[in-house]
């Protein structure tokens, strides 16, 4: 087997003004990830715009409308790889009205880059981005203090920003924060070490990304296997084969393990595990497998297989943090479809406990409406029980989306705490 090159998914929050697109462009360009023909295309456009250097932000600004507006309006995914890791970047816009995009990008991320303009220091949007990262339980924050070239690479300046960031982040739920002084435009400490800041002894951004630990992020304790669909084959060379297709969301399962099917009290044993390359003795997250049981049970999509001695919570009503995604506001009394793992149930928002003011991060307990980009704590009722863990313990079984039955639109994202 070759070395275990793994995947790091990270999100970048910040606005065009912070130089976010330039930073990603720099990261890709300096690590030689951009093909020559694209470099030439960007050279041409840069010249047309009257610039004498490459406009690195052009490597990432994707859609036509955005290029015209000069802002990023949706989550865009970028890819690069080094010898150590494959990276998936969820590039999200930083403007106030795009909280929902940040939440989307953060939902699959192991790490988040927070960009601060060295001239401006910690701003309201820095607080908002960090708050969302902590809400979505991103384990690692990498705070890049950008445009150090414009403050003469001054250490005091950097130290002050670090101090003021730590001052407010102490209240957030973040495991690991690192600070890096950079200049995306000039390339300092992005891929290459900088001569301009001898006072900084830490790692470059790329080195940090290559070494962030993601090993402890998958919950390996609580076995949860939501069934995607049953597989039944009974013809030709395959006689009477019954199995359940799904992805191990957490924990480990072995042949012979006792299994309980939820909802219900039925218990059985694992007869066989089929992986992507044949039979397995054990399986773990995030493998896609099929499970065969020793007994014939009535198991369908939306059911979850667990171990009898390690069960999730069975809930009919609960409170959750919601991010309202839709431009259509919440309609009180309207029923929505709640999608949790592979299960769908009808749901009703019983009450809005409070809505965060995303600018001040203060709680507004009087609000009765939910508009796009609102973050709120709500009380939900579901028509049939769902089997959940807290989001903090298990992202896959602690998260859900709300779907509007009439428009079929995903209107909200939720986390159970």
């Amino acid at each position, binding site marked *: 087997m070759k070395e275990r090159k793994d995947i790091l998914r990270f999100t970048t929050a910040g606005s065009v003004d912070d130089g976010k697109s330039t930073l990603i462009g720099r990261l890709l360009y300096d690590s030689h990830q951009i093909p*020559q023909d694209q470099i030439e295309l960007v050279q041409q456009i840069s010249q047309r715009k009257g610039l004498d250097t490459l406009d690195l932000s052009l490597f990432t600004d994707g*859609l*036509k409308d955005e290029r015209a507006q000069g802002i990023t309006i*949706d989550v865009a995914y970028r890819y690069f790889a080094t010898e150590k890791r*494959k990276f998936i970047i969820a590039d999200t816009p930083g403007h106030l009205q795009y909280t929902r995009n940040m939440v989307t990008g953060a939902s699959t991320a192991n790490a988040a880059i927070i960009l601060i303009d060295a001239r401006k220091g910690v701003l309201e949007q820095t607080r908002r981005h960090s708050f969302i990262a902590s809400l979505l339980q991103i384990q690692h924050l990498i705070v890049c203090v950008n445009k150090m070239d414009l403050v003469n690479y001054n250490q005091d300046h950097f130290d002050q920003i670090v101090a003021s960031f730590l001052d407010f982040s102490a209240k957030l739920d973040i495991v690991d924060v690192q600070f890096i002084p950079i200049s995306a435009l000039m390339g300092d400490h992005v891929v290459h070490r900088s001569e301009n800041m001898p006072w900084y002894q830490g790692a470059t951004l790329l080195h940090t990304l290559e070494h962030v630990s993601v090993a402890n992020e998958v919950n390996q304790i609580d076995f949860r296997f939501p069934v995607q669909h049953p*597989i039944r084959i009974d013809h030709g060379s395959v006689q009477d084969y019954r199995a359940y297709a799904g992805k191990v969301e957490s924990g480990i399962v072995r042949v012979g393990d006792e299994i309980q099917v939820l909802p219900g009290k039925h218990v059985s044993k694992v007869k066989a595990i089929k992986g*992507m390359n044949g039979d397995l003795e054990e399986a773990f997250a995030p*493998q896609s497998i099929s499970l065969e049981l020793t007994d014939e049970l009535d198991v369908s999509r939306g059911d979850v297989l667990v171990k009898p001695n390690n069960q999730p919570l069975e809930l009919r009503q609960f409170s959750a943090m919601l991010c309202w995604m839709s431009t259509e506001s919440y309609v009180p009394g309207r029923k929505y479809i709640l999608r949790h793992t592979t299960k769908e149930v009808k749901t009703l928002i019983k009450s809005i406990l409070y809505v965060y003011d995303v600018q001040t991060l203060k709680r507004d307990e009087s609000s009765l409406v939910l508009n796009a980009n609102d973050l709120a704590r709500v009380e939900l009722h579901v028509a049939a029980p769902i089997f959940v863990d807290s989001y903090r313990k298990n992202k896959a079984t602690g998260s859900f989306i709300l779907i509007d039955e009439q428009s079929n639109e*995903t209107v909200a994202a939720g986390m159970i705490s």
Partner: protein
Amino acid sequence: MNYRLNYLEELEAEAVFVLRETYAQFQHPCILFSGGKDSIVLTHLAAKAFAPGPIPFDLLHIDTGHNFPETLAFRDELTSRLKVNLRVGKVADSISRRTAQEERGPNANRNRAQSITLLECMESFVFDAAIGGGRRDEEKARAKERFFSHRDAFGQWDPKNQGPELWHLLNGRKHEGEHFRVFPISNWTELDVWEYILKEGIALPSLYFAHDRTCVIRKNSILAQSPFLVPHETDEIQDLKVRFRTIGDMTISGAMESNALTVEEIILELKEMNQSERGNRADDYRSESSMEDRKKEGYF
């Protein structure tokens, strides 16, 4: 035991998850099969996702009529080996029905007409999801694609109004007459696809490997000489040793000079080479945003 997947295993698990969600959430999905490596990998993943059963999807080939003979032979061998149902939609039929028009001009091709034939097939075969081998790294307009990408009743894509996709909760709900495009290998790069082909020992059409061929040099592109190609005054004809990096319609698939005879050699070549995958596709370079414009109309 190390309970960690490496990057190829993780990408495979994710793609299989998406394929199974497609099976569970739609009535009648198909795999868009072009004979290119991405759709071959997709078909391979589908075979694994539903093993030991058969692939529960039809393969749909949108045939521009400008095929490499090797692609058709490969397609027919693969479909009979995997025992999958092959559906073919011919662009020529759309043209004779006059729902599509043959392009005119020196660079005429059937690329845009393909979108029309595809939508006609979705309707006539009553497919409600078309699974494609599109990857987000291919082109800027694709970087924002979802795994489940909604198409309205006219098959159009609205990049500014895409549903959000969080965690891996995929929402395939739709109204009558609408459909979805599904992209299970969204997160793969070209190199990932090749590394996976190597790891799995997946067979490919011989066109992907270096071979001798009479080529037409047109501007920066090397095209296969064929009866379908309208000659230009400035064309140069040369015998070259080439391989194809993407395979589609013969009139627009660009070749590159190469000596790579094996998948390992192709991977080495890719790592050393500095040219993007679609860089020599005659269709993408018409304007800075031509892929985005075609996608809005219902292109793959």
